[in-house]
């Protein structure tokens, strides 16, 4: 009822675009693989255009919530269909749009159950988009589960290495997370006495007692933290990444893990700021352990996707450390890192996926010499690895730098450890490159062709995004600031 006739419902149109893609795919006959792929590419491309459009239309001088849509759904329970985006959710929408489109393109060579695959992928992404734009706790929870449920099937059917185990482990972990989130939501809604699930209404500073905030934050932190790969709840993530097919790994590491961090931010920090302040030291501790632990564990891996999985644990630790600093710089860095890491892992998995489809192996020992046969394909891998190391002028450098700067003021010891982990991360990433791309020409792989322009397109887009935000970090920081500065200013101290 609050959709004003003049404003176009941009946010809902993204959801409808995903649903439209889903329905069109379901209507197509399953054997028409090409048509299904083109339809998927069209609708995912359209969502990318829509998110880009939002990125351009969002007024940074005004800041705050924009493109708000509100329709009352179940008034007796206070549930509304309530969407809106701010400087935190917009980067996530953009990230989802980019990763979704490139993931669809990456799966262009899929031949097995094409229709089901893309249908489930669209369903998954609908949930992701819905979650990032929704401002109603009920809907957030619903979207969360919508995005989790297809994951099990996607991994169990199209996956590889120990796929049943990986799928089951991932699903159980994430359900355990939602078993903490739901009580958290219900608890806060009931305690507020407002009869509403409206996030903005529940954000009023004096609504919850300190105890309620501490409890609520803890539930959200652990619940969403499982999804964000917070140590020690991270072990589902390497296993899940390895088992998943390429596009799912991309969406999963690129976007779904960000849902976890975003949930902590949107629910935990927005609703329970006192809980945030209270639990921040614990967050910093776990995040630092994750950063250091991830790089060391990654050093021992022999499967290239495991290596990426553990580097994700480490990189998501940087997000956690940024959030734990309770500062503008830390939040900026954390959200930027969510974005940058999403793009980077998408590129990583996409590059590895291409190589895996050709060589049918992910074992580091069996690869080697790829730069001879597929220089461009391994070039993408090199760029992804360099981004992971934190080479300047590639996106995640700025995110890591700001987090280091912010955390050095608050937790000098943790920051020192996190910075020192850079050496080990360089060591293991370069080892991966040395064993895959470099070395004498590999006869077993000599007949394989390099990536063609069309198949290389998704990786090209991702590299362009990494370079764009690496060279012009202000594009992203200025957007995030519109949300982080008001949040910090409104903080009860």
């Amino acid at each position, binding site marked *: 009822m609050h959709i004003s006739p003049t404003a176009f419902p941009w946010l809902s149109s993204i959801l409808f675009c995903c649903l439209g893609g889903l329905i069109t795919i379901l209507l197509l006959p399953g054997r028409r693989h090409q048509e299904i792929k083109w339809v998927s590419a069209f609708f995912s491309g359209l969502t990318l255009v829509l998110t880009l459009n939002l990125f351009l239309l969002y007024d940074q001088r005004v800041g705050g919530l924009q493109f708000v849509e509100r329709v009352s759904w179940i008034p007796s329970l206070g549930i509304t269909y309530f969407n809106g985006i701010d400087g935190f959710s917009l980067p996530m929408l953009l990230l989802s749009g980019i990763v979704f489109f490139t993931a669809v393109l990456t799966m262009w060579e899929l031949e097995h159950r094409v229709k089901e695959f893309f249908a489930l992928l669209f369903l998954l992404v609908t949930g992701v988009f819905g979650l990032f734009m929704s401002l109603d706790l009920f809907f957030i929870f619903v979207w969360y589960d919508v995005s989790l449920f297809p994951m099990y099937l996607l991994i169990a059917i199209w996956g590889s290495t120990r796929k049943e185990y990986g799928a089951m482990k991932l699903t159980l972990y994430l359900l355990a997370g939602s078993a903490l989130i739901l009580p958290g939501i219900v608890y806060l809604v009931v305690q507020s006495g407002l009869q509403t699930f409206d996030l903005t209404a529940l954000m009023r500073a004096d609504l919850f007692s300190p105890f309620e905030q501490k409890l609520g934050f803890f539930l959200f932190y652990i619940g969403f933290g499982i999804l964000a790969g917070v140590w020690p709840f991270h072990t589902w993530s390497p296993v899940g990444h390895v088992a998943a097919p390429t596009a799912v790994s991309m969406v999963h590491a690129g976007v779904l893990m960000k849902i976890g961090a975003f949930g902590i931010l949107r629910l935990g920090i927005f609703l329970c700021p006192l809980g945030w302040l209270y639990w921040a030291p614990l967050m910093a501790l776990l995040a630092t352990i994750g950063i250091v632990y991830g790089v060391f564990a990654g050093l021992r891996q022999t499967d290239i996707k495991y290596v990426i999985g553990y580097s994700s644990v480490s990189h998501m630790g940087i997000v956690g450390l940024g959030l734990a600093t309770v500062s503008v710089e830390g939040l900026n860095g954390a959200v930027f890192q969510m974005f940058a890491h999403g793009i980077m892992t998408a590129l990583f998995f996409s590059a590895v996926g291409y190589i895996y489809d050709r060589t049918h192996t992910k074992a580091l020992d069996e690869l080697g010499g790829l*730069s001879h046969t597929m220089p461009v394909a391994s070039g993408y891998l090199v760029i992804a690895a360099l981004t992971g190391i934190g080479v300047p002028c590639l996106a995640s450098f700025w995110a890591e730098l700001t987090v280091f700067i912010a955390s050095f003021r608050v937790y000098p010891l943790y920051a020192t450890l996190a910075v020192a982990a850079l050496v080990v991360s360089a060591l293991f990433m370069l080892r991966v490159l040395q064993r895959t791309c470099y070395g004498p020409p590999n006869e077993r792989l000599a007949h394989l062709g390099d990536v063609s322009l069309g198949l290389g397109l998704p990786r090209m887009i991702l590299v362009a995004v990494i370079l764009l935000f690496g060279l012009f970090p202000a594009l992203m920081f200025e957007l995030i600031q519109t949300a982080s500065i008001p949040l910090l200013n409104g903080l009860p101290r």
Partner: protein
Amino acid sequence: MMDISLAAALTGLLAPLLAFALIMVLLRGRPHLCAGLSIAAVGLSLGSALLLLARHGASPNPLEYSVQWMVSGDLAVGAGVFLDPLSLLMMVVVALICLLVQIYSLGYMAGDPGLARYYGFMSLFAWAMLSLTLAPNLLQLYVFWELVGLSSYLLIGFWFEKYSATQAGKKAFVMTRLGDVAFLLGILLVLAHLGNLGIREMNTAAVAAAFEPSTLTVAILLIFGGIVGKSAQFPLLTWLPDAMEGPTPVSALLHSATMVAAGVYLFARLYPFFSLSPTAMAVCLAVGTISMLLAATMAMVTRDIKQVWAYSTISQLGFMLMGLASGSYFAGVFHLTTHAGFKALLFLCAGVFIHHFETNDMVAIGRAGGRRQLIPLVCMTLAAAALAGLPPLSGFFSKEAVMAALAAQPNPIWLGAGLLGAFLTAYYAFRLIFLIWFPDRVSAETAPENTDAHGHAHAQPRWQVLVMLVPLVVLALPTLGLGGLQTHLMSFLAAGLTGPEPVLPHLPWLPLTASGCALAGLILAWFEFGRRRAPRIGFAERSAFWRSLFAERWYIDRFYRALVDRVIDRGLARLCAGGDRHVIDGAVDGLGRGTVASGKAVSGLHRIMIQHRLGTMFAVIIFLALYFFI
């Protein structure tokens, strides 16, 4: 007025970046166009560097142009250019040597299948190095500091099919990264106390007030850690000799003349800031001295021609740091400048020999008739004499300046070490020269005419020989004449320094003593390697103990190997990976099994015999009764 300078600086900086982007994205299939583009770009950089030098060389006020690169909360990072005598001088040196090396590479790398990639990486390096040189703040400097490290990694591992090359690239990156971690922590510390990272702001005396003295020392030493890594000083020195796995022009450009000198440049850049802490300066002096002597000993026993020059690079960088750390800004920067010239020359000459004889072994080169390559050999002899510090070559003057600074130190041990270093330098430099000029036997006139490992035919076109010789001759000029410009350079550089340069005592005996030491080294080398009946085995090589100590690089490499193997790979990494599998996953899987088991137990309650079910019902009723009635 200002706009022309700004435009020149931007052109000089961005032209190589543009070349890099074009080469990597569009032109990979056309290597000759890539080479031309890259050379044109760096030529443009040199032109703008010279223009800037002409316009601002005499001006006492540094120029700074900055724009906001990124703002995040309180943190603002600027990007821009900072033009003062030091950065202008460095810019000219970097651009000149980049240009010469890229021209030389036309001949050296001719026919290599990766030529386009090579010139792409060279352009990337030129961009990063020039931006580092002109950085107005420490963060920009750090950004490009990392990027030159990256281009170094890419260029060392350029022949990626060679395991040793990729290994060396990785080692270089990780070891310098270790120093960079310290550097970054130092930056964070300075930022936390000062709130600003501008070079100009850091170089004021007022900075000392913002720090506790001990914190200031720690911050300086942390930043110095970055210098240790980048300039391959003790204890992070062993990556540099391994970096010789890269193509020789790369060694000439990155691993001797410019990139490794970036560490020394940073020291000079922050010289007033560094001199705020005498403790830190003392540590720097000690590190420079140790590195200088260690590397000189290593150079005495190796037979690999590039290795000798690599060790001597470490040693000379140590000399520069000694000069700076003992309080003479001018000595360090002057030695940096002269060294860039003659060291690039040494490597480029070595490249001619390696290219022609297909071996790095100096003895083999001598026996194969190395002295028939007259122009390179003469150039190399000149440059080696400059390296040894023999008058009237450039190295004599700059090394003399360093010695004067050392002589001003209260403790004579530093001067003693410096003189010993001069002796060793002359010895190992002329050991190499004599082994090529006067081999014990010259093989028959069968110069190899076949193709070498990288597939270029050896009957080289004439133009290729020529493009390799011209840069040698050009570089020989500053080696000969730069010493004469000492006073000019001194006043030029002094204009950019805020603090007062200490007046060094004029010691007439010092030049004589220093060049006497060098001459002694030369004579010893003559007796051992030059004269007709020379044993051709050095004094250090006779004893097995010393030989293995020096050849094994004082066992520093073994220490690192063991550290990575035992502590990191088999220790911490195994701990974390094993912890993941057994402890965390073990607990989770155990929880899963426990859940299944308890489910079975519960299901057992109402599945088996009727008396069990009745028992369960009875128990439940009892419990409910207790709950409701009590």
